[in-house]
């Protein structure tokens, strides 16, 4: 192995090229490429049936690819290296807990699978239960737990082996806003402090935009876009807008705004104006001209496209060519 390859292995937690998976004649994945740096919080977005679960299964060696050029996780090639990566990985998928076991037993069981002895496994279980606010109920069977508590248990279970790479699947489903916020903060903190890589799948695009350092949109079996949430949004939504908010009582008209340099169109709602500008490079000139208007303003700022807008733009355009090319 060359130094260059070694460095690349060290830098990337996941490296995938040309990943294709058919179920019968149906392509679930049609040439997926992914690069996820170590320590990243990565979000794989896509509609139901897009192939997110299939991707996670293949990346964990529990499902075989039909065809792939490169499939490397934490420096190990798959599927040969599946047994090497499993101790380094924690997966939270849409599965169930053992309802008839207690919360502590559910977690310590999995800790045992990760090589901890009984005493260490119990300590690890209690530590995680404490972190998720469930320690007082450690001795209760989880069948009595609420959906949110079970969700916390599933996340705790994925963390029980102190993994280098964690796959939380819809991690905040069923959680109240406080718990969701805490979990996202935890993910952000651990990824920075311990260089743990998170590979999230979720439909909560606002959360993904907030927590992810990188996202990819999977639809029709192919990656439509990947990069930072801002990069993906900017690439998928070419429309450039500037929000202009007049001060209360100020008289600002659509005609005044459309006369400014770069303005091409406008929407007005709730006392603010959303002005379409020809391009990103035209925004500074428009802003300068807007603040020079003889009108009191509360604010003038570019309205960056959101991940949700990008997602809707990307998943609504099936790429039959890509699917056909994968055959």
């Amino acid at each position, binding site marked *: 192995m060359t130094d260059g390859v070694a460095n690349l292995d060290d830098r990337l937690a996941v490296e995938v090229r040309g990943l294709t998976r058919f179920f019968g004649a149906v392509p679930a994945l049609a040439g997926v490429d992914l690069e996820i740096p170590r320590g990243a919080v990565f979000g794989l977005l896509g509609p139901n049936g897009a192939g997110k679960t299939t991707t996670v*299964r293949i990346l*964990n*060696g*529990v*499902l*075989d690819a039909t065809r792939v050029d490169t499939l490397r996780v934490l420096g190990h090639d798959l599927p040969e290296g599946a*047994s090497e990566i*499993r*101790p380094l*990985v*924690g*997966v939270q*998928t*849409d*599965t*169930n*807990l*053992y*309802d*008839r*076991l207690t919360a502590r*037993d559910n977690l310590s*069981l*999995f800790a*045992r*699978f*990760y*090589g901890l*002895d009984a005493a260490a496994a119990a300590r690890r279980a209690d530590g995680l239960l404490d972190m998720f606010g469930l320690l007082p109920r450690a001795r209760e069977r989880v069948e009595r737990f609420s959906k949110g508590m079970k969700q916390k248990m599933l996340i705790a*279970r994925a963390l029980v*082996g102190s993994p280098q790479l964690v796959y939380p699947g819809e991690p905040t489903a069923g959680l109240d806003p406080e718990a969701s916020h805490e979990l996202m903060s935890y993910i952000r903190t651990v990824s920075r402090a311990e260089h743990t890589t998170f590979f999230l799948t979720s439909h909560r695009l606002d959360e993904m935009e907030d927590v992810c350092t990188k996202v990819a949109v999977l639809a029709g079996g192919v990656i439509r876009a990947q990069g930072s949430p801002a990069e993906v949004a900017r690439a998928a939504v070419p429309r450039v807008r500037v929000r202009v908010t007049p001060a209360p009582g100020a008289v600002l008209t659509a005609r005044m705004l459309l006369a400014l340099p770069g303005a091409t169109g406008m929407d007005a709602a709730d006392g603010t104006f959303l002005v379409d500008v020809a391009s990103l490079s035209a925004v500074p000139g428009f802003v300068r001209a807007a603040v020079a208007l003889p009108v009191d303003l509360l604010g003038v700022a570019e309205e960056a496209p959101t991940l949700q807008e990008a997602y809707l733009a990307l998943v609504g355009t099936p790429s039959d060519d890509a699917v056909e090319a994968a055959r």
Partner: protein
Amino acid sequence: MIRLDRVRALLAKDLAETFSTAQIMGPLVVVPLMIIIGYPVGFLLALQSAPGAVDGLKDFIGSFPVSAIPAIPGLTSAGRAAYIGVVYLFAGFFLIVPTMVSTVIAANSFAGEKERRTLEGLLYTPLSDAELVIGKIAASFLPAVMFAWVCFAIYTGIVDVLGAPIVGELFFPTANWWALMVLLVPTVSLFMVATVVLVSTKARGFQEANAIGGSVVLPIIGVVAAQVSGIMVLSAEVIAVVSFAFAFLDAGLLWVIVRAFRRSRVVSYLP
């Protein structure tokens, strides 16, 4: 390399789940106890209280070869009936009991995990394929054999208390029963468990695995029927030979299961 600590953890989890599931344990305890307590107690008490009833069993007693009953001084017709009933008639139940227990527990353990959507979580852990399969098989095999041995101990007590006075001496357990319990019950149970686990990797749920696995019981029921009717009286030597044949089958089946088990195959049959 198989790590026994991980296998033990999986085994302990499965046993805890099995023993805490009333739907599984209820039938598993009630039906066998009815068979191994109710039938022999009723039979032996009937012989004690109404020895004349043996007259109606003359043809049945006559169908058993003379060599099947030892020469016990002063053995009465009721004693012969008691001996045949205790040693041969009920022996088959002790094959059916562990077979039934192992089938139900194995189907619940593997296919049941699929149905309850807990199996996929296990597939992502560092458990190797061999550890997963061995843990699952052990978790069904051990309770089945232990349960059969507990039933055997209870049965021995009943026979010694109620049967010995009719036969005229303490005669139980006989050599063929020792062979049955020590050799045949474990090997047949392992065969059943391995078969159900093999079926379970493709079955989508408990009922499907239980139904398919249960069909393997049919030849065993045939052997039991032959034994009961006196067509085939299994001596200790015959039982030992049959047990070794099952042991050979078990080894082959386990080899096939461990070699053929693939997480990807199991995942593709998840509901």
